[in-house]
């Protein structure tokens, strides 16, 4: 019999903390970017400016929610929901601590990949439904980028799956009790992290929304809370990327002294800061460089990594 109250509580805690953290990350990113660029960033509202996201939210809710008359209305309205839903659905399989997971699926890794491949639709369809050439160009770029990076995102994390011998995320974390997978799977981690950055379209892979060339890319026509959903969705996918990196390669909740959930949160925080640091320091690639880099460098690297890992696992087993 399922303990419904426990499940409901887990869902509430994970959903609540994801959305709060996504909001707080907007403030954190702006502050950290400020620090690294020798300026202040938002520092007025609340201690250190930490209530800035709340103010932004009030502002964004009271803005005019405009649907362009030339847009494909139904699809245009649905799209922002797809971003947030797919990102939040992925958190259902994220094990924060032992027994602290909404759905401990046997195919957890594949569920995560499935959700991230569905998330591509939001970008593609959003740009198309806007019926605006810049948005359309942004979504065309997004298709090429997401399709190519999705391929080796899957391949790169198969090394960790091979070592753990399971698609279940809790089992993968449990298999890292004595050694984090980042040591035997360093190249797998590199490929996964780069693919994750591209999937979340973050700098240096944020060509679909390159503001210098494409206004705001696929979400140029979105305003009000619809734009807010895209914005929150992007931060949710950063959160998800750091959570998955921690689970697959950095031992999940394992760590001395502190309780498991705290370790998990600390490691995640480290990756969030790293992702923001990457944005603060690196320029954007050119689009052909992005695809060349993906197919000619990361893809062979991920394949060789998988081949070697498979060989070693097989050699050890016999």
């Amino acid at each position, binding site marked *: 019999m399922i303990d419904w109250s426990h499940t409901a509580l887990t869902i509430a805690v994970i959903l609540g903390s994801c959305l709060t953290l996504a909001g707080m990350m907007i403030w954190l990113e702006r502050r950290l970017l400020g620090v690294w660029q020798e300026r202040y960033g938002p520092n007025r509202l609340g201690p250190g400016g930490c209530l800035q996201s709340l103010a932004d939210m009030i502002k964004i809710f009271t803005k005019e929610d405009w649907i362009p008359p030339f847009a494909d209305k139904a699809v245009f309205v649905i799209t922002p929901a797809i971003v947030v839903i797919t990102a939040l659905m992925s958190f259902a399989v994220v094990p924060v601590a032992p027994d602290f997971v909404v*759905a401990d*699926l046997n195919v957890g890794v594949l569920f995560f990949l499935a959700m991230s491949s569905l998330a591509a*639709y939001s970008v593609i369809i959003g740009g198309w439904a806007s019926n605006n050439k810049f948005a359309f160009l942004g979504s065309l770029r997004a*298709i090429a980028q997401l399709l190519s990076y999705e391929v080796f995102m899957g391949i790169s994390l198969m090394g960790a799956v091979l070592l753990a011998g399971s698609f279940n995320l809790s089992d993968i974390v449990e298999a890292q009790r004595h050694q984090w997978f980042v040591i035997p799977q360093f190249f797998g981690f590199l490929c996964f992290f780069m693919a994750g950055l591209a999937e979340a379209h973050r700098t240096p892979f944020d060509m679909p929304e390159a503001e210098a060339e494409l206004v705001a890319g696929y979400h140029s026509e979105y305003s009000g809370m619809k734009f807010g959903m895209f914005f929150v969705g992007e931060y949710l996918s950063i959160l998800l990327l750091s959570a998955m990196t921690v689970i697959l390669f950095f031992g999940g909740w394992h760590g001395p002294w502190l309780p498991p959930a705290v370790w998990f949160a600390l490691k995640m925080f480290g990756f969030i800061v790293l992702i923001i640091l990457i944005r603060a320091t690196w320029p954007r690639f050119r689009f052909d460089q992005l695809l060349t880099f993906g197919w000619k460098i990361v893809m062979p690297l991920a394949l060789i990594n998988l081949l070697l890992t498979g060989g070693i696992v097989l050699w050890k087993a016999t």
Partner: protein
Amino acid sequence: MRLSLVAPVARDWTMEVLFYIAAAVTFLATLRVITHLHPVHALLYLVVALIALALIFYLLGAQFAAALEIIIYGGAIMVLFIFVVMLLGPLAVEREKAWLTPTAWVGPSILALVLLGEVGYLIATGDHTSMAVAEPRQKGISIALYGPYIIGVELASMLLLPGLIGAYHLGRRLSREGR
């Protein structure tokens, strides 16, 4: 104890209700794929149909097949379809209207009726397997693929390789002309 929200611990009738809902969604979405004049909307319905189909696989215990259904069909292949169709532009609706004449329905309808007859026969004779099929886990699938069906896997990969080389060839010639 591991908690799970959707694993098959729920009572049987809930699973059956979920199955019929998913089946109805698949049916309606597929119907809209065929009848919708707008190609991109039709493809979006096809995506919905594929997701619903994945849910049906999941309910039948084939979690692995369900995940692959979404990753490969729902994710990769349909994105490519939409990519191509998006380039058709707004004229596509008019063209589709011209193609979708009543006479175009005759052939597919007859073929579908044959299938319906077969299903009706199976239901009438009571010769149907139960919903709870044996659980094909990913390990079982893998052992089958790399054991007795290894030649099939190799043939499929040989089939894919010419496709890959062909795509490379076409892309290369294009880029040389572009220079």
